């Protein structure tokens, strides 16, 4: 339904213009994401002090020249911690999204190609998983397998999987009857090859956008779990863990929680804006 409306409302001229020129919003978003990736790979380029170094007489410095984002209760530099935290936070977000998509592809393919009974079974499984709100599912998972970065990734991935699976299944059903699939079948290609070469790439294309945005959401959910103390254990420079540590001092040292949270917001915002730009470009190419 939404595809139909897009076609009728976006004139071709406008699509071409957005596709050829990068507007300031997407440009900023992509720049910030690039900055994050560099910070994740080589944090020492931006942050010069040790994120774990304790300097007791420097505790609770408000943001200033010496410490851009201030210091925490042990005198650790918040800016360094946020920069060094990028690696783990990004990794958790990417890994959780990848896991969610992996589960979703398996369920979506089973549902979309496996015949009526299997499809109904997958439908039921999804409905059951949907009845657990993501954080409740994640809490249950952490209850069973303990806390830490590994379970955190799996818990966040599991929480996101049902939503993606529903989309994959819809896409597979839509692509399954396309002319090129029929052609591939008629040419006598083996089923496995058709699924890998034709069906999946075409079914996944619209999902690239959802995935881009999903990484941001996964970082938010993972930091919610870390915030509850179920993720990376305390002095680790991870954004959610930092928020959780700063929570006790919120009345007199706002910068402990403000800056890690700001990075989470900017990351989510960037993935959303970049994802939408990608969507416009893809749709522009398709129409």
């Amino acid at each position, binding site marked *: 339904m939404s595809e139909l*409306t897009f076609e009728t*409302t976006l004139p071709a001229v406008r699509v071409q213009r957005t596709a050829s020129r990068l507007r300031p919003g997407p440009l900023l978003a992509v720049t910030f994401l690039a900055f994050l990736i560099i910070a994740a790979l080589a944090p020492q380029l931006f942050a010069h002090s040790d994120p774990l170094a304790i300097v007791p007489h420097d505790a609770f410095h408000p943001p200033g020249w010496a410490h851009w984002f201030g210091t925490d209760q042990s005198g650790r530099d918040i800016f360094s911690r946020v920069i060094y935290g990028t690696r783990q936070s990004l990794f958790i977000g990417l890994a959780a999204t990848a896991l969610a998509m992996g589960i979703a592809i398996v369920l979506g393919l089973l549902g979309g190609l496996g015949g009526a009974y299997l499809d109904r079974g997958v439908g*039921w499984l999804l*409905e*059951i998983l*949907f*009845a*657990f*709100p*993501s*954080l*409740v599912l994640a*809490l*249950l998972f*952490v*209850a*069973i397998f*303990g806390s830490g970065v590994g379970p955190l990734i799996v818990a966040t991935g599991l929480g996101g999987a049902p939503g993606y699976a529903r989309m994959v299944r819809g896409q597979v059903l839509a692509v399954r009857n396309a002319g090129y699939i029929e052609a591939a079948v008629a040419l006598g290609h083996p089923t496995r090859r058709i699924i890998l070469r034709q069906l999946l790439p075409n079914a996944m294309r619209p999902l690239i956008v959802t995935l881009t945005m999903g990484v*941001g959401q996964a970082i*938010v*959910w993972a*930091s*919610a779990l870390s*915030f*509850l103390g179920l993720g990376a254990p305390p002095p680790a420079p991870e954004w959610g863990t930092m*928020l959780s540590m*700063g*929570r006790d001092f*919120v*009345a*007199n040292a*706002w910068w402990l*929680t*403000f800056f890690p*949270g700001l990075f*989470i*917001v900017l990351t*989510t*915002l960037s993935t*959303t*804006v970049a994802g939408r730009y990608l969507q416009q470009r893809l749709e522009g190419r398709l129409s």
Partner: protein
Amino acid sequence: MSAITYSNARHERLARLARRATWRLAGGVLVLWAVATLTFFALHLMPGDPVLAILGGASGNPTAETIAQATREFGLDKPLAVQYALYLGRLLQGDLGMSYSQHLPVTQVLAEQSWATLQLTFSALALAWLLVLALTVLTAGRGRWVSSLASLAETLAAALPHFWLGILLLAVFAFGLRWFPPAGSDGWRTLVLPAVALAIPLAGFIAQVTRESLELTLEQPFVLTARTRGLSDTAVRFKHALRHAVLPGISLSGWAIGALISGAVVIEVIFSRKGLGRQLYQAVQAQDLPLTIGISLAVAAVYVLANIVIDLLYLWIDPRQQGKTA
């Protein structure tokens, strides 16, 4: 004659709605059974001895006799299948067992805590919709600048994690300006900050889809017809366009209930509010099996019910959907 066919059609429509509601309820019961089964078996795989959790953790140093007695008392010496059958039997009678950590019936804990969470989530949902309607109806299709400014605000709102927003609100309005109490769950003043923290990100999500669909609706021929009949712009927006434009937002509200409950866990912890979310968090940490299962079931039941209501609401607002989604 025409009156009769009209009332017949109306009657038939109601009957169809009722049939659909019955089917959905039956499906919902099955989903809840599956949820109960899944949580029961999953949590019995949990490492650690539940008996120790009952007796207050390993630090309590219980004697062998008290352990044996508690094991018998809570039926933990029976095989898992028997425990499951007994659990289901009790569940059918509305008995969810005794909480290990609070030594109270789980149903009693649920009854005490649900109201606070329902209050929080529904005021957040209502506030979110209020924000959405105000923002979209006033700004949709009003020129490029207004539109892009409002859409920037929505994107930003949707990107705000509620726990961060909660902490910021706490720092500014509770500790800084002292307008609202920082913690507690008595009275409307304690409800304001948590509800706002949950509502703003949600409003961002719903407003994005509602704006898009409102802008599409305002270009429809029937809107032009209404304008040519001399209706004011406000009347066109509220009476004619809105009904069409809220549909995607309403179907998103089903997802929103789940997101709100997830959010409530964190928000209740931040604001030290009474409620199911914080209770679940504590139950998980205390390895309190019956309470964890009980709250998960209650949450799933609310979610399933809310989605049935939303499904019916959808059909009621847009009767065209009836043929399509049967």
